[in-house]
């Protein structure tokens, strides 16, 4: 009946078929487009770092006789790893980073797991309150505590006023207490414990007591239950918490900069900053590669050790029925300790920052020294080098506006892209497209923010391919923040999509709904909760981003964080702390707005980080 078509025509027909199919799946097309653009934005920087580390840079020309810019060389590697300066360029910062990394991870995991256990598994009162308060420090920039620390423990090492500690006791704070490794570990630990807290409590919620009771009935004793049932479920969460905390604290910039630089205590990120600031870009690139490699190794180990088990545990509050452990007489002691912790980690830093902005002369703690000048004062050259009060300061207003814009743009773009990626990955599970999307969108995770900033600075200073020179534009800030946030937004997109049964969309499809319509009427409403909390988190992350943008801002595009850093650098403590409070204020307002509209869940958008 049918005449077999010639092979050529048949192949053409199959192609026509595939194209017809594609026409009804815009998500595949959009994802392909995204993949191409995004690979460009991720792979090119990596190649640029590699290339930069392997060639002579302009600044090297005067150092190395006969060198030609762009010529291939191992010069930077030799300089960083074996040269005369290797100790101060690499080994010391690396050692410091390791100490900070392990110290913070240890402190954060101990605190986080303890709190998680206490809140999930014991009979303490105020559980809901605690579970909200415990994640609050995570919403603040990690260096807020560092700023407060400096305000208290600053000593005469740096010019300017002494800290509260000295003012009150008359004793000069010792260096080890004021700067360097001890305060860095403490300040970061008080911030990053939130990861362990969220992940471990998520895992603990899922170990419902039925499992444990079943085990008890089967004759396992308490210790065996812990080892055979509880531990295996909590281990992946601990593994993820370890990797997350360790890589983040190794790569973080703000706190080591504030607390380390005054005493020339360098970690790798601050050394990268110093190298690039002194135009030794090549060295900075080599160091950046070290961080990239470390992050890669950590992720690899995590996926190996934890294997196929989901490394990012989600908190599914499925009927918490566990019989809480009775704390007995300890109950009140432990509750008091938790309140004390919250006081130290949240309330105290904010109070200290607020107080310090009200002091005419830093270090004078008498009531007569209080002033609102730093908030509302006109320019006065006797105070704050003539900086206007925060509320009248056009630079700060425009910084706040820029920060909010940056946060909103990033939240919307990341949210939409994350949802699209989630959709494509989940609907095409196992396909090449899905796998490459998943890997590629996670890739920026390995970039230290400061190094990524440096690369984008170089890449977009002049027109790059079809892209015009973006340096100095606000768009560049949005771009880099969006790229850096993709790992998180694609993950939350994927987990949101996994919750939606495909048949819900398919039945709409059979009812004649086009892709766009299905997305709008079915997918989006069902994914909305996760979408909104993901956006809120992106907003917060973008608002408090420092290392990523610090090299890219120009006076016109300054954001609150870089303004804070600049004030701090110029020892204008009141302004630095005041602007930090404004930043916190905006973040809190955003949180309240979102939870007003979408119930109290918004805070728990943090759970999948």
């Amino acid at each position: 009946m049918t005449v077999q078509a010639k092979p050529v025509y048949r192949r053409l027909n199959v192609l026509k078929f595939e194209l017809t199919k594609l026409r009804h799946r815009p998500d595949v097309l959009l994802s392909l487009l995204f993949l191409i653009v995004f690979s460009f934005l991720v792979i090119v920087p990596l190649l640029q770092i590699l290339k930069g580390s392997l060639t002579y840079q302009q600044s090297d020309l005067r150092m190395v006789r006969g060198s030609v810019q762009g010529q291939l060389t191992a010069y930077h590697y030799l300089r960083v790893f074996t040269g005369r300066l290797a100790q101060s360029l690499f080994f010391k910062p690396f050692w410091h980073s390791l100490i900070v990394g392990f110290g913070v991870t240890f402190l954060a995991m101990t605190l986080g797991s303890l709190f998680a256990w206490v809140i999930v598994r014991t009979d303490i009162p105020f559980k809901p309150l605690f579970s909200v308060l415990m994640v609050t420090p995570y919403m603040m920039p990690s260096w807020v505590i560092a700023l407060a620390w400096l305000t208290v423990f600053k000593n005469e090492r740096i010019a300017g006023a002494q800290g509260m500690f000295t003012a009150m006791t008359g004793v000069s704070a010792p260096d080890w207490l004021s700067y360097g490794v001890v305060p860095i570990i403490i300040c970061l630990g008080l911030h990053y414990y939130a990861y362990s807290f969220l992940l471990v409590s998520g895992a603990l919620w899922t170990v419902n007591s039925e499992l444990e009771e079943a085990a008890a009935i089967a004759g396992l004793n308490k210790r065996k239950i812990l080892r055979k049932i509880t531990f295996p479920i909590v281990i992946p969460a601990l593994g993820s918490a370890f990797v997350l905390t360790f890589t983040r604290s190794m790569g973080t910039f703000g706190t080591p900069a504030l607390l380390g630089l005054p005493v020339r205590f360098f970690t790798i990120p601050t050394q990268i900053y110093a190298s690039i600031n002194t135009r030794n870009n090549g060295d900075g690139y080599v160091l950046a590669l070290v961080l990239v490699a470390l992050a890669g190794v950590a992720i690899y180990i995590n996926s190996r050790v934890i294997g196929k088990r989901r490394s990012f545990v989600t908190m599914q509050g499925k009927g918490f029925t566990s019989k809480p452990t009775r704390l007995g007489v300890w109950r009140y002691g432990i509750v008091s300790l938790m309140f004390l912790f919250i006081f130290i980690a949240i309330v105290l830093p904010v109070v200290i920052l607020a107080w310090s902005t009200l002091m005419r002369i830093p270090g004078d703690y008498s009531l007569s020294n209080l002033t609102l000048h730093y908030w509302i004062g006109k320019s006065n050259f006797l105070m704050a080098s003539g900086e206007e009060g925060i509320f009248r300061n056009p630079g700060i207003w425009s910084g706040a506006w820029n920060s909010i814009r940056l946060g909103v743009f990033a939240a919307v773009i990341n949210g939409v892209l994350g949802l699209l990626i989630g959709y494509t990955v989940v609907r095409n599970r196992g396909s090449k497209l899905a796998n490459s999307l998943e890997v590629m969108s996670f890739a920026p995770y390995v970039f230290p923010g400061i190094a990524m900033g440096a690369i984008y600075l170089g890449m977009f200073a002049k027109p790059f391919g079809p892209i015009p020179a973006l340096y100095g534009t606000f768009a560049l800030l949005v771009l880099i923040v969006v790229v850096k946030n993709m790992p998180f937004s694609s993950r939350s997109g994927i987990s949101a999509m996994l919750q939606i049964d495909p048949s819900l969309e398919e039945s709409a499809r059979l009812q004649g709904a086009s892709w766009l319509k299905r997305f709008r009427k079915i997918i989006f409403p069902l994914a909305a909760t996760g979408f909104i909390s993901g956006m809120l988190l992106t907003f917060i992350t973008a608002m408090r981003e420092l290392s990523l943008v610090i090299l890219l801002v120009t006076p016109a595009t300054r954001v609150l964080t870089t303004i804070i850093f600049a004030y701090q650098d110029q020892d204008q403590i009141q302004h630095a702390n005041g602007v930090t409070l404004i930043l916190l204020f905006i973040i809190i307002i955003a949180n309240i707005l979102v939870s007003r509209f979408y119930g109290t869940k918004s805070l728990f958008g943090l759970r999948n980080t």
Partner: protein
Amino acid sequence: MLVFFREALLSNIVLKGISKSFSGSPAVRSLNLEIEESQFVTLLGPSGCGKTTTLRLIAGLEDPDAGEIFIGGKLIFSREKGVFIPPEKRQLGLIFQSYALWPHMTVYKNISLGLEEQKLPKEEIERRVTTVLEKVQLTPYRDRYPSELSGGQQQRVAIARMIASEPDIFLMDEPLSNLDAMLRVDMRAELKRLHYELGATTVYVTHDQVEALTLSDKIAVMMDGELRQFGSPREIYHYPTDLFVARFVGSPRINTIPGALARQEGKLLFRSAFFEKALQRTFDFEGRDVIATIRPEDIAFSTTPQSGWLEMQVYSVLPAGSETIITVRKDDLPLTIKAPGFADVEMNDHIWIDFDIARMNFYHPQTENLIPAA
């Protein structure tokens, strides 16, 4: 315009050589099936045999690796010819096993969404939703959300959603499997009535052979992705084309008796280890081993000796009110007998049985295919 077009459209379904594999393992193997306009056709088979996949292939939710699909004489899928009509244009209604109601929409919205897609005027939508809600007796529930309904009500919303958009073809994937037993029986009657009233071509997936027998015009029995038999319930029940179909359809399970066809004194006989029986039909299979089948209700029994009947000992008795299932044994051969009402037999009684020889079928012992009468 649209209405005219749709009425002109026939809605028979033709599958030609349809194959589908999932990462190398075949789920449907070169399936040929013709479903006529307005027929109620059931895909029947054990779980995992490819029924759902077949249904999804018809709907367009999966793409065959090879083969062609026609609806109403129109080619809607052919990879080789570069033809693909997407599901949203195929004018089909599908009821998923999970119902797939949209949890964020009320019953009303669930039903009206598809109608809005058809760009119907507001009053028409209102009218149609009201009509179908009445039809499925859910009028008081129009503003409820799916989570506020019972399983049976959700099921009826799914039906209402499907019939509201008046598709040419209904596809249903085990729609009754999530209901409790009583409700399931009631819903069978509802579905049959629905098909009678609307006359839409229906493809119905189930693993429940009673459902298939009670509902269908035709049954397609599938196994391992292959179509084993396609015929009316009567054909499927009385003349299964192979032993798999014979065993899968009917409850209790059909009896199988190994033996041989032999001619003796001019008469054709079925001869087993302990009895022989003259046949009225002739087969081109004389002198060879066969496997005979007989349905439990085609075995008569008596508690008193009858001449020419076989004596057997009762192994167990299972009275179920309307019928009694008696199993008997002789040597290694178990037989199941179905008797109406309560039968007066006890365990270990001796009874005498006889086979309705016209109902006995014979199968090839190796290929397990039906041996047709000559």
